[in-house]
């Protein structure tokens, strides 16, 4: 399987725009996923009986083949980026919800108690104590969700979207490995870079974990 470098040279613009579009889809999905999973995780964390249910639902959603999700969404959101993003968001929930709940669980009871005993009210405790302390575990989830989303964007080629995934269909149709290889390599590169960025973000957000003995 040889790589046709001239093809790559001729298509740098396309590759760039596909990469950006790919990234945008994945990031939007993760962002929405975080937005949805944070409140749900708080509910799952606080109300034990709902935990199994919520995690179960996110699990089931995760197992639905993407094409089926797209087909169901088409009447609603059409052939748009929205459809792609909704599909991806659904998949991120399984990781984000679980990790956020685990993150909240991992906050030492002692510390929460301390906050309560100082006279901090529940909402403030949540925002200033529980979330910051759960951050490492939540961020671990965000990292996995991001990498996963980036790898999953390509399934949206079924609806003409899918960023770098278009290269797979193209190469497949024409029995032409170069675009496929380019697509795979760029996807991984994107994931690695995004992951590294998130590590950096986490480093900035959690100053208290920097100089662990």
């Amino acid at each position, binding site marked *: 399987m040889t790589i046709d470098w001239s093809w790559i040279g001729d298509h740098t613009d396309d590759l760039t725009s596909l990469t950006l579009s790919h990234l945008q889809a994945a990031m939007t999905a993760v962002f929405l996923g975080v937005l949805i999973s944070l409140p749900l995780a708080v509910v799952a964390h606080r109300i034990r009986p709902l935990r199994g249910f919520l995690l179960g639902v996110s699990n089931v959603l*995760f*197992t639905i083949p993407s*094409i*089926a999700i797209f*087909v169901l969404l088409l009447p609603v959101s059409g052939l748009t980026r929205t459809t792609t993003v909704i599909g991806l968001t659904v998949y991120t929930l399984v990781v984000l919800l679980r990790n956020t709940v685990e993150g909240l669980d991992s906050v030492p009871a002692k510390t929460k108690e301390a906050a309560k005993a100082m006279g901090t009210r529940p909402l403030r405790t949540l925002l200033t104590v529980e979330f910051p302390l759960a951050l490492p575990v939540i961020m671990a989830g965000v990292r996995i969700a991001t990498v996963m989303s980036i*790898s999953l964007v390509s399934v949206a*080629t079924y609806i003409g979207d899918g960023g770098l995934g278009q290269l*797979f269909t193209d*190469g497949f149709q024409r029995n032409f490995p170069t675009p496929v290889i380019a697509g795979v390599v760029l*996807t991984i590169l994107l994931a690695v870079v995004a992951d590294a960025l998130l590590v950096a973000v986490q480093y900035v957000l959690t100053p208290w974990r920097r100089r662990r003995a």
Partner: protein
Amino acid sequence: MYELFKNLGTWLTSGANWSGSDGIAHRLAEHLQYSLLATLIAAAIGLPLGLLIGHTGKGAFVAINLASFGRALPTVGLVVLVFLAGGLSMLPVYVALVALAVPAIVTNTYAGMTAVDPEVRDAARGQGMRGHQVLFQVELPLALPLIMTGLRLALIQVVATATIAAYVSFGGLGRYVFDGLAQRDLVQVLGGAVLVAVVAVALDLLLSGLQRFLFRHRTA
């Protein structure tokens, strides 16, 4: 919508749809075969790897990053690539599914190993256990719950993704999804999707039940 779900019910419950080489029973068996085999292969790769880095504490950084790298592999791209390289066979499907499952298994195995209380590991050495005895008699049993979690996670992902086999002409429940799409049979698409989800969830429940049974003596 209501009509759709009613038809879905009929599709799922009609006996005719269950039998034959194109029947649900057969497709289900194929799907299970792909998923279990892929997970098994992934376990054969990921478990020793995770145990090794967990036991020696060496190579963790590389392994964890490789795992994350593995997670980033786009399944469709991988299938197409292996197909273009090697032609039409189940190989592309297995390569993609195994690549999908290995990261979850490695990271969870490793996490399980690092979660073993160092005091206990120390105690094992202190009683005169050799390296492999520490690994198999102490670390592995203690890491097992997390390892099982990793296997479950991997299996769910594999079951959900094994529909890809139909993309390259093979069987499994993905057949319904792709055929239904081509034949404009929405009921069939959804039927396939529902079956995949049910299989995934059922396997997960089964394994979590098994896990609970096996580790019923452990504390929370």
